[in-house]
């Protein structure tokens, strides 16, 4: 997940359309506006996504020099999610169900009561357990329009697209054989050949 240590694993994205002009002060304000906000146990949100400092998941106020490095805009994509272990949730639910049935003098709970109880128990467990924190380095080179996300997992990739759009008002397109071909230059003849291309096989029965 890190761009600064060890081997690199990343996915590339490209800003759709013309490269926007990045005005550092404005960009930094937009980043701060969309900075990561910690999850609150009593609120309904199960996940929170926002920016943090590049390489520092718990620094939520990146400064100018953290963000603007050479021609890059460097940020951390932080994603927190409540992750209550299923076994713990089931055990607590059983305990509370037994208590509630005893209080009500009944043998079973209605479907609505069960749902409410699950919500109550989940909420109380959120006070006891910290959310699962994930932070991934993101590096954007505005001049070339390339954004490198230092993971290839689908979840952070989707979160990046959303957050990028909200923060910088630009849409990202994930790299694929076609996107790279298009950037390298496709004439009308090549576009036609691309559209008509059929998969190659070396299978002997296909000959």
């Amino acid at each position, binding site marked *: 997940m890190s761009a600064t240590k060890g081997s690199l*694993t990343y996915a590339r994205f490209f800003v759709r359309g013309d490269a926007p002009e990045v005005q550092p002060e404005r960009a930094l304000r937009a980043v701060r506006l969309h900075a990561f906000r910690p999850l609150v146990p009593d609120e309904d949100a199960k996940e929170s996504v926002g920016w943090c400092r590049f390489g520092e998941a718990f620094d939520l106020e990146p400064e100018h020099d953290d963000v603007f*490095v050479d021609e890059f805009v460097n940020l951390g994509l932080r994603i927190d999610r409540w992750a209550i272990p299923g076994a713990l949730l089931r055990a607590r639910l059983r305990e509370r169900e037994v208590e509630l049935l005893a209080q009500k003098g009944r043998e079973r709970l209605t479907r609505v009561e069960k749902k409410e109880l699950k919500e109550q128990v989940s909420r109380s467990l959120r006070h006891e357990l910290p959310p699962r924190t994930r932070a991934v380095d993101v590096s954007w080179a505005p001049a070339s329009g390339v954004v490198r996300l230092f993971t290839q997992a689908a979840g952070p990739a989707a979160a990046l697209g959303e957050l990028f759009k909200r923060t910088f008002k630009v849409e990202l397109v994930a790299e*694929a*054989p076609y996107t790279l071909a298009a950037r390298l230059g496709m004439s009308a*003849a*090549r576009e036609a050949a*691309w559209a008509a291309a059929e*998969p*190659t096989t070396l299978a002997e029965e296909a*000959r």
Partner: protein
Amino acid sequence: MQLVDRIEKRRFIGRELLLWLWFESEVLDGTLPTASQGELGLWIEREVLLSNGKELTRVKGAAPALGRDAKEALLAGKLPERASFKVSMGEREASFTLKAETLALSSLRLPTVLDDGDEPAPGELGAGPPRRGRARRSTVEEDEDRARDAAALAFQERMALTREIEAMLEALYADFLRLRLDSHWEALVVPAMRTWASGGRIDAERYLRARRAATHRARRR
């Protein structure tokens, strides 16, 4: 054809890129010519994963692509889904795994990376300009600044090297597309790849001449 179709329905082109890189690296003894970057050293090492729908063949080892297992998988209709490559550019070497359908790099080991932990001494590369008016600042703050500068420098070097690798791959992809999106693919490359996968002999010099002429003609169009 809509943009989404051009992206999603032609992801197999990435698998064909890997197949072509594999084929050329073997036939041309690991030295691939490119139109824009000159000659590059490139070969598969550690692992190649082939698939056809749900059927997978994973071949591991020092030179996994050289063995018959991998070739048999090709002849059974599988194509590379990802492969680990070693690349040499002049005296420098790097390694990475390339995913066919996203062209994404993983486990990219760069040739040289500045130490991102040590502080550069004053005057050394990465030490930055001499600071003034900071006599009252605590040592902790100065240490943080130095660590930040060193990390920024290390990051810049890593990105410069990463872009070199990307440029090399883009040069290879550009040459591949010149063949793939032209009649040369079916006329020259696919028959040669079939002969190679079946264990037949390829006249490397002759292939290379034909390939150079084909990419040259395609470039001029």
